[in-house]
């Protein structure tokens, strides 16, 4: 399409290159991911980087962008040598190298423009009106790359479809004015056809203006239409490079396959194992969210390979078989025999890190027996020993910790786990990832042996060279089975072209996430609050009056402030179990020491407050669980309060009462302060740094990579939480004009409850301050309501509990509904 604008590779190379990488080598012991690759990228070029699964493309770009350290090699950027010893993502960014990763690095709890801001804070300088500036920036960037995108920059990331999120990620990278080189890793994998074309147009246009791109894609048609040159990798090495005119789709396919281990026609099995019809999996027109119309049959004795490009449904099929094998089968799928699953991502879903090899190996067999069966040491040892010896796991005996093993040996243990359990159907999720060749060979032999003994092995692999060990193959593409082969009649070319064939599969339009108006998170708590208030005022119209309102404010003021503090902490994914005790301590200091000796009291209060950011710092520095630190602190707060004052009593200093709790002609000052604090909290959370703090609750790594300090964030959040809880203590003193070390104890759990009712979650940085306020008020109002209904106060707590459960259950139902 753009032959005029395409310079030939030679012409482009004549300009001074922007990036020159020499002899890059990255080793993940024991695999060599990138083996001595040199790459020169001319200014203003679009270089396509392609290769089969596991060729080393991702590792190469991770090395270029500082995410992974190079073991050997030199890098020249703009003719200047880069110090690879001290190379990091932020150093790469300073040079002007940016990456759009496949796994997105956005904060899902923020809006589109907030995501622009946290990464481009240097552009959005204004203190006030930064939102407007960030929105403009986001809008401009999105429109520049994807004209007519229709993305609302004020929408939350969670409300966008995957394709739209991908667009945001791309546009965000392009808005960086310092950018010199942009690396795009599969940018179009989830983009619809129109946006793909827009992106291509944008790239070719800006490349002509001097921007440089590395473009990784499995879609060869796209590569041909936009790239100037192609760099093909295979097994961590450069396979071929040249100008786009010197190649073609067929040529590239051939280059990717040629010379690969076992290339050409797949090796025929020496002997086909006998089939065992007692074991099998059968699918007929099976559908799930990610699998479409899947029909196949496999029986014992087969090694069925699942292949295709990553993320095209192989893993979903494997897990679906496991799920249906464990539980009652669904219609369309029937499974004969016991299943066992060998996880591929060892760290995330495979090993149990606290355990020995022995326990790791026996767990599935143990779990399959009666829950209370006595498992003697001998039983465990006997179960494990055969496979342990057979697999030649290198270790100091079976009682050594699993983490002391190398990756390959850990993988052996995981496979032994399935074999020890004597499962009929063994599901392998890419088990040889990161395993050295001798171990791999041992595993291949093992799989064959398992199949020969009548087991069915279903094997998802990302290494195409492994397909020759399978007796049967299925190629998946976008959740469809696009090819089923008996191992004897298929070539690599066929498999690769089936996997790469994609253009006709592309969805025409962005799948619209259902455009129903999303209710804000705090809706439930607000509705609950209003309902309770309405019932209360029906019972007692007095509550609608100013006097009634004031009476209620007195009841919930302190809890509201505690909940605000708790919101900040839960927003970070932590829990503060010391809120109530801290509030109590401030209350006690205020009414005893501060009353008697104002100076000493002030010192006490100040040091109590300073403990909070210090806590944040300790939690950051030592990576200890916040829940225990705050639990320990709650004992300390309570103990200090008790030492100052063992019985309820004390008097609040008059000036505090005057400031915080005086009736004025308009309204009680308490009401004013409460509103002021709520507004302050909300305004802060929406401010520039508040936005950053929210980002930390969702995606810490992304925030640190964008250059924000984790220590500062932790300390700020704890300081904030401390400040609000502190004020809760002051208000308690003003209201009660007395202090009681234990009186605020219930605020700890109530504040957590308020945040959760208010739409918050314990993880993911999803909280709302307003929701928490509504939650706190609702919890208090339940007490008021029960009082009006003449229900004994004995019931208050339990009805609060019931309402809490009810609200959370409703929320769950709502969520489920949203998914369907």
């Amino acid at each position, binding site marked *: 399409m753009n032959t005029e604008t395409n310079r030939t590779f030679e012409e482009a190379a004549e300009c001074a290159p922007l990036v020159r990488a020499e002899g890059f080598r990255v080793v993940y012991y024991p695999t060599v991911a990138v083996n001595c690759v040199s790459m020169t990228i001319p200014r203003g070029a679009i270089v396509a980087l392609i290769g089969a699964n596991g060729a080393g493309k991702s590792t190469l770009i991770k090395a270029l962008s500082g995410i992974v350290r190079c073991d050997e090699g030199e890098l020249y950027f703009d003719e200047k040598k880069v110090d690879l010893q001290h190379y990091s993502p932020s150093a790469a960014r300073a040079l002007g190298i940016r990456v759009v990763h496949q796994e997105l690095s956005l904060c899902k709890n923020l809006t589109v423009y907030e995501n622009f801001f946290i990464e481009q804070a240097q552009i959005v300088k204004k203190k006030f009106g930064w939102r407007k500036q960030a929105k403009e920036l986001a809008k401009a960037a999105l429109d520049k790359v994807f004209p007519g995108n229709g993305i609302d920059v004020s929408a939350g990331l969670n409300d966008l479809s995957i394709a739209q999120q991908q667009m945001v990620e791309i546009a965000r990278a392009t808005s960086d004015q310092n950018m010199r080189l942009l690396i795009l890793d599969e940018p179009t994998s989830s983009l619809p056809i129109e946006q793909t074309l827009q992106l291509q147009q944008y790239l070719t246009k800006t490349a002509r203006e001097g921007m440089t791109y590395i473009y990784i894609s499995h879609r060869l048609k796209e590569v041909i239409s936009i790239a100037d040159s192609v760099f093909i990798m295979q097994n961590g090495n450069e396979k071929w490079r040249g100008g786009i005119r010197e190649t073609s789709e067929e040529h590239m396919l051939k280059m990717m396959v040629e010379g690969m281990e076992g290339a050409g026609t797949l090796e025929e099995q020496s002997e086909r194992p006998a089939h065992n019809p007692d074991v099998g999996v059968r699918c007929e027109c099976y559908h799930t969210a990610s699998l479409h119309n899947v029909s196949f049959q496999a029986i014992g004795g087969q090694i069925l390979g699942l292949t295709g490009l990553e993320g095209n449904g192989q893993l979903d099929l494997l897990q679906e078989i496991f799920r249906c094998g464990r539980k009652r089968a669904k219609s369309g799928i029937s499974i004969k025999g016991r299943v066992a699953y060998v996880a591929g991502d060892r760290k995330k879903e495979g090993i149990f890190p606290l355990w020995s090899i022995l326990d790791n190996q026996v767990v599935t067999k143990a779990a*399959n027996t009666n829950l209370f069966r006595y498992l003697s040491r001998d039983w465990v040892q006997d179960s494990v020993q055969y496979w342990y010896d057979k697999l030649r796991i290198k270790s100091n005996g079976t009682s050594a910790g699993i983490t002391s093993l190398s990756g390959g040996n850990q993988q052996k243990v995981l496979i032994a786990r399935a074999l020890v359990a004597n499962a009929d159907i063994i599901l392998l999720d890419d088990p040889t990832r990161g395993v050295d060749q001798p171990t791999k060979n041992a595993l291949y032999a093992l799989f064959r042996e398992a199949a020969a003994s009548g087991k069915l092995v279903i094997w998802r692999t990302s290494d195409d060279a492994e397909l020759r060990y399978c007796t049967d193959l299925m190629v998946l593409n976008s959740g469809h089975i696009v090819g089923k082969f008996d191992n004897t009649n298929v070539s690599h070319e066929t498999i690769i072209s089936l996997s790469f064939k994609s253009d006709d599969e592309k969805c025409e339009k962005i799948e619209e996430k259902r455009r129903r108006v999303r209710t804000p998170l705090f809706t439930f708590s607000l509705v609950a609050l209003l309902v309770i208030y309405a019932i209360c005022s029906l019972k007692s119209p007095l509550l609608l009056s100013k006097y009634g309102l004031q009476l209620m404010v007195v009841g919930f003021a302190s809890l509201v402030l505690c909940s605000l503090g708790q919101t900040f902490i839960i927003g970070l994914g932590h829990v503060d179990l010391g809120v109530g005790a801290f509030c109590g301590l401030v209350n006690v200091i205020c009414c005893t020491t501060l009353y008697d000796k104002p100076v000493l009291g002030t010192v006490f209060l100040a040091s109590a407050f300073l403990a909070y950011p210090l806590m944040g710092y300790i939690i950051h520095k030592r990576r200890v669980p916040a829940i225990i630190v705050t639990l320990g602190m709650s004992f300390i707060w309570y103990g200090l309060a008790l030492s100052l004052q063992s019985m309820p009593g004390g008097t609040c200093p008059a000036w505090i009462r005057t400031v915080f709790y005086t009736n004025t002609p308009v309204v009680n000052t308490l009401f004013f302060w409460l509103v002021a604090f709520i507004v302050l909290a909300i305004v802060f959370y929406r401010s520039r740094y508040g936005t950053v703090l929210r980002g930390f609750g969702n995606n810490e790594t992304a925030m640190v990579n964008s250059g924000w300090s984790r220590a500062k964030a932790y300390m700020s959040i704890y300081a904030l939480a401390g400040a609000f809880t502190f004020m809760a203590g002051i208000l308690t003193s003003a209201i009660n004009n007395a202090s009681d070390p234990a009186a605020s104890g219930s605020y700890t759990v109530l504040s957590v409850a308020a945040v959760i009712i208010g739409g918050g979650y314990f993880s993911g940085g999803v909280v709302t301050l307003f929701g928490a306020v509504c939650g706190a008020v609702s919890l208090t109002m339940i007490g008021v309501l029960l009082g009006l209904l003449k229900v004994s106060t004995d019931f208050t707590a339990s009805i609060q509990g019931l309402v809490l459960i009810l609200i959370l259950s409703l929320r769950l139902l709502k969520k489920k509904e949203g998914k369907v």
Partner: protein
Amino acid sequence: MKNMKAKAFFSRNGSWILAMLGSIVLWILMGLSGNGITIRSLIDNAYTASFLAIAGLAQMLVVTTGRGAIDLSIPGMITLGAYVSMGVCNGSNAMIIPAILLVILLGVIVGLLNSSMVIFLGIPAIIATMAMNYIIVTGTMLINNTFNVFTIPSILKAIVQTRVMGIPIIIGIVVILALFIHFLLSSTSYGKSLLAMGQNLEAARLASVRVVRVEVLTYVLASVFAGIAGALISARVTGAYLGMGDNYQMESIACIVIGGTLMSGGRANAFGTLVGSLFLYLTISSMQLMGADAGIQSVVKGALIIALLLVGASENGEQRDGRRHKAGAEQA
């Protein structure tokens, strides 16, 4: 190599070994400052600690399910257990067995409700059990005045007070209970499944662990133990009263933290819990001996929890970082 093993052993068991050493030091100090170093003073503390240990063991099971689970309904269940056992018995030995059966039944119901809320409604354990605690407390309040809860059946009293060769048998009972739980955790399918799911829920599911069954059973066991602890405590303090379980809320967590159980789940230490509760009470009584008031005691308790955590973390923290680094590289 030996050094490595010792290191690994220490990082697993460090905190309760420290607590054990601490206990001995406290015991000696108490002896020096007071009535001389006698076994008697140690036994008296162990006696008080054994009641906490039961609650601690219950808490330990729930915490071990992982994902920050804590059972906040233990205090309520202790109080309920006390009321029901005292009320049903009404001082008669004949009614002890029905009473205990009823306590167990209630424990099963509470455990089932707790676990269903956590598993099927997806409510975080802290919130679910907190709500449950409120409900139990109210339930107890309702039956507060209906029964006579101050006459203790003589057999129950005997269990709590009898000493064999100067050692209260309740200590023996608690040690046997800890042995039993240790056995459950280390040598049964249930235990392996529980420890596996606490370390990594997804890995456990993929390793064919019957996660739901194990989790339900864990909450049930915890509630049943708490109920029985309530019955025993009320026999010791001459009757049931409202709020009698409240102290056990935070202390049950404190004693398992000291005992080396991981709050994030997946590692439990039944004997550590015993040591942890003994250490906690030795700390309290030695401070009482020194004339420290309740406030100072609480401060010291809190400081101990944090100090032990930081001491334990210095080793683990590095390890964890190293692991993360590796994991990051491998993903790439």
